[in-house]
């Protein structure tokens, strides 16, 4: 295809995008002269350039549009919705024409008479009321300086036109000179205008060039290879003594890193590139559905890798359409719900922890959780008992399942039940996560987290079973090494599940060699130490036990071929410094696999969800056992630490058991005694104590066994006639009593006083 046409296609696309935004802005702000001027110029460029390179249809359509705009600019035609719609339709036609040109190289035989007629109709409506003074069509002839002056309101258009007219009739002076000499404009305004003109000229030449994306991809790949080669060289440096070689390698290292950063930056695009089309989408949809919507966008400068931008474009558009169609109510409904008639749709993007977060929230009706639950049961997506047990959050996330829509009727916007599952799949495909939360009557928020880039990531290299594995640094929280005695007893078992107490919090432990079915290598250093890599997967932490921890390295992620793509534990592979291949662990996949293996019983999906994602709004509960079967829970917020005390360290003060704890005397309260639960046979093992600190000091609650920590919405199902208990609730499918800690301590203190 013709090089000029190619270039025009790109430029034209950009102009049309900008026009979309300007029009929506213009509707809100119809008196803005600047906006009309901008729109006019854009349409004029389309017409002019289109005509020059032989796109006659484009020229003829935009010619009519230009005429309308020129009237608007002169203030002879006031803007109204029908004009804007007609002009927007013209932009759509432009877009179709450009698409046809891109496909076929020609404009095709699209029938434009309809659109031209409807545009002309707008024009003749104006023409029929003859203007008082014939004003020459200013902008078509005004040179740039004049245009800038008019825009800045430094001069009235008529003077510019007059000056232009006299230029045409033989006046050889510059337009600025004429204007100054006619006294139409002060000289410094001309200076300013010239300045602006030259600046805008410089900008377009120097600040950016167009580069073929394929070329960028190629450069990116080469830089990836270079990073690998650099890593290999750096491995050699460790046993080299040649100073010159070492410093050269060091420089190579630095330059490669900088080059890599630079190339990554060339691929970064602001998320605004996608968002920019949303004002138009929102306008069209809200007009079609009779809703009033304000679109709020924050953080549109947040940058993302180009491939990711492309991957989230469709999902985001879908979510926005969904929010408009299902989420926001009509003005009447909103007023009935005592909300302002205008709905709010807000988009927010920001960087956090090496990831990009995107939040799409509306202040609409929120999700009808009961309807979703009912629908899920009706569609047999999940059995009714299970649906009853699921938390609100889990129910809300059902909207991401295939074939799910609770919309009362199918509209042409959405509601066909395809979509949200595709949204989820697409986002997960690029390593992102999506989560929905909703408050009935108050609105819905979708949170998307996506990685910044996919190509080169920092990773921790670990070994297990003689093989190396890379763990993306994003998931890494901390490293724990247990040696000697700690290694023998540090990891405790709750039935099949191993846990480690990390600063008093139970951390589920996953053994990498068991998950990957590797034969453990005999411990090479023979010290029996345990290496725990604490990882974060979707908001939940777990510890991964590996044989050895090597180093962190920048790795180039290469996808796995289809033969291996089904294994959820691996995110890809990379080439290490020594030229060998290492697999990259998929932490979320690994966590899911581990929890699946651990919970062979029925409630897998809910449990899996529970492990994979935790919600900050859920309360954490510490579960423990007292006596033979008494299961109790207290809010984790009341727990300062979990401690073990050797039974020999217990001393007595008055009739109370106490221990020396952190240079204070801490009274111990036996929960079993306080609740009059038959005492469990006292073993020789250490005493399990839950430390509860108040302003006046700490109290140790003696329990028989710490069971677990769960994140769950707990609703008290049954009140109990015992002041020390808040009631009973179902936690993890077991009836659990909720301990009223302040009351318990108070009652013991009371007993102490009376005794």
């Amino acid at each position, binding site marked *: 295809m013709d090089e000029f046409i190619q270039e025009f296609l790109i430029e034209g696309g950009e102009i049309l995008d900008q026009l979309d935004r300007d029009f929506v802005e213009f509707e809100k702000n119809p008196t803005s002269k600047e906006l009309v001027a901008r729109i006019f110029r854009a349409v004029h460029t389309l017409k002019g350039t289109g005509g020059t390179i032989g796109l006659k249809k484009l020229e003829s359509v935009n010619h009519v549009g230009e005429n309308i705009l020129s009237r608007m600019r002169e203030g002879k035609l006031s803007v109204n919705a029908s004009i804007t719609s007609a002009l927007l339709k013209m932009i759509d036609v432009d877009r179709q024409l450009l698409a046809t040109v891109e496909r076929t190289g020609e404009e095709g035989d699209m029938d434009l008479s309809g659109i031209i007629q409807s545009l002309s109709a707008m024009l003749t409506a104006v023409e029929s009321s003859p203007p008082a003074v014939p004003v020459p069509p200013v902008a078509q002839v005004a040179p740039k300086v004049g245009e800038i002056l008019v825009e800045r309101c430094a001069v009235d258009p008529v003077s510019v036109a007059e000056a232009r007219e006299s230029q045409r009739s033989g006046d050889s002076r510059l337009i600025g000179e004429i204007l100054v000499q006619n006294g139409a404009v002060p000289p410094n305004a001309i200076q300013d205008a010239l300045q602006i003109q030259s600046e805008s000229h410089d900008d377009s030449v120097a600040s950016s060039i167009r580069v073929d994306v394929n070329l960028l991809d190629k450069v990116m790949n080469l830089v990836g290879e270079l990073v690998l080669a650099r890593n290999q060289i750096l491995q050699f440096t460790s046993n080299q003594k040649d100073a010159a070689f070492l410093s050269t390698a060091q420089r190579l290292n630095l330059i490669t890193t900088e080059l890599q950063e630079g190339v990554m930056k060339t691929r970064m695009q602001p998320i605004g590139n996608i968002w920019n089309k949303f004002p138009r989408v929102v306008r069209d949809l809200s007009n079609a559905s009779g809703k009033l919507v304000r679109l709020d966008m924050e953080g549109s400068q947040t940058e993302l890798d180009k491939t990711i931008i492309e991957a989230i474009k469709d999902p985001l558009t879908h979510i926005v359409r969904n929010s408009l169609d299902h989420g926001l109510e009509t003005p009447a409904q909103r007023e009935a719900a005592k909300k302002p008639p205008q709905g709010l749709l807000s988009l927010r993007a920001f960087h956090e922890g090496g990831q990009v977060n995107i939040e799409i929230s509306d202040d609409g009706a929120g999700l009808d959780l009961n309807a979703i639950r009912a629908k899920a049961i009706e569609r047999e997506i999940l059995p009714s008992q299970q649906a009853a047990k699921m938390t609100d959050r889990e129910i809300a996330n059902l909207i991401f399942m295939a074939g799910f829509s609770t919309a009362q009727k199918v509209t042409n916007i959405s509601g066909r039940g395809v979509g949200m599952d595709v949204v989820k799949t697409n986002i997960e495909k690029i390593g992102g996560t999506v989560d929905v939360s909703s408050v009935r009557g108050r609105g819905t928020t979708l949170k998307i987290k996506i990685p910044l880039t996919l190509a080169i990531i920092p990773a921790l290299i670990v070994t297990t079973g003689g093989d190396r594995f890379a763990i993306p640094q994003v998931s890494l929280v901390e490293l724990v090494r247990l040696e000697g005695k700690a290694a023998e007893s540090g990891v405790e078992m709750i039935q099949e599940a191993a846990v480690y107490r990390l600063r008093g919090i139970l951390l589920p432990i996953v053994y990498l060699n068991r998950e990957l079915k590797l034969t453990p290598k005999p411990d090479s250093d023979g010290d029996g130490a345990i290496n725990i890599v604490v990882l974060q997967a979707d908001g939940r932490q777990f510890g991964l036990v590996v044989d050895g921890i090597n180093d962190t390295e920048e790795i180039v992620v290469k996808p796995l*071929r289809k*033969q*291996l793509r089904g*294994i959820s534990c691996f995110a890809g592979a990379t080439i290490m410094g020594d030229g*060998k*291949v290492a697999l990259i662990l998929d932490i979320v996949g690994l966590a899911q696999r581990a929890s699946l293996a651990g919970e062979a019983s029925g409630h897998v999906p809910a449990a899996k969800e529970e492990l994979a994602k935790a919600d900050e709004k859920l309360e954490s509960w510490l579960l423990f056992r007292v006596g033979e079967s008494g299961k109790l829970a207290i809010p984790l917020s009341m727990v300062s630490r979990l401690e073990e005390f050797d039974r020999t360290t217990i001393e007595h003060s008055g009739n109370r058991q106490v221990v020396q704890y952190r240079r204070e005397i801490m009274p111990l309260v036996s929960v079993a005694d306080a609740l009059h639960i038959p005492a469990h046979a006292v073993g020789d093992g250490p005493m399990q104590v839950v430390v509860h600190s108040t302003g006046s000091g700490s109290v140790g609650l003696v329990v028989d066994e710490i069971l677990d920590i769960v994140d769950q919405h707990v609703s008290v199902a049954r009140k109990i006639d015992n002041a020390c208990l808040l009631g009973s609730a179902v936690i993890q499918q077991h009836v659990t009593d909720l301990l009223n800690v302040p009351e318990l301590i108070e009652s013991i203190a009371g007993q102490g006083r009376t005794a």
Partner: protein
Amino acid sequence: MSATQQQFCTFYVQGLLFGVEVETVQEVIRHLEMTGVPLAPEVVAGLINLRGQIVTAIDLRRRLGVADRRAGELPMNVVVRTGDGAVSLLVDEIGDVVEVEEKDFEKAPDTLSSTSRELIRGVYKLKKELLLVLDTQRSVNIGATAGNENR
């Protein structure tokens, strides 16, 4: 080369002579160090680094369902181009490039095991031995068969 002639790159797997069309072969290389993939279907021998490209290696012995190589016997790589990028086929020994005539072709006999019949497109009757034509696309396509239990 006349229209009825075809060139095949040949190799041996457990004493049998196999061939793939020369055009589909990217290269033939000696044994390369491999990284095993835990949980992978057993026909996947591992991943190799082919000049910066990560290539999946498929053990043809396992793919054909015959006994494993004895310990210490190193396989060779026949790297073939497939619809999903390059894949390496692990074979025992590399043969020559041979030219065959269309008239010598016959379909695989029905008495072959079902796995073999799936992978062997046919047989060329050479003077001294039989050349089994391997279907490379099917050989590397393991999603439907061996990979199942791991998915």
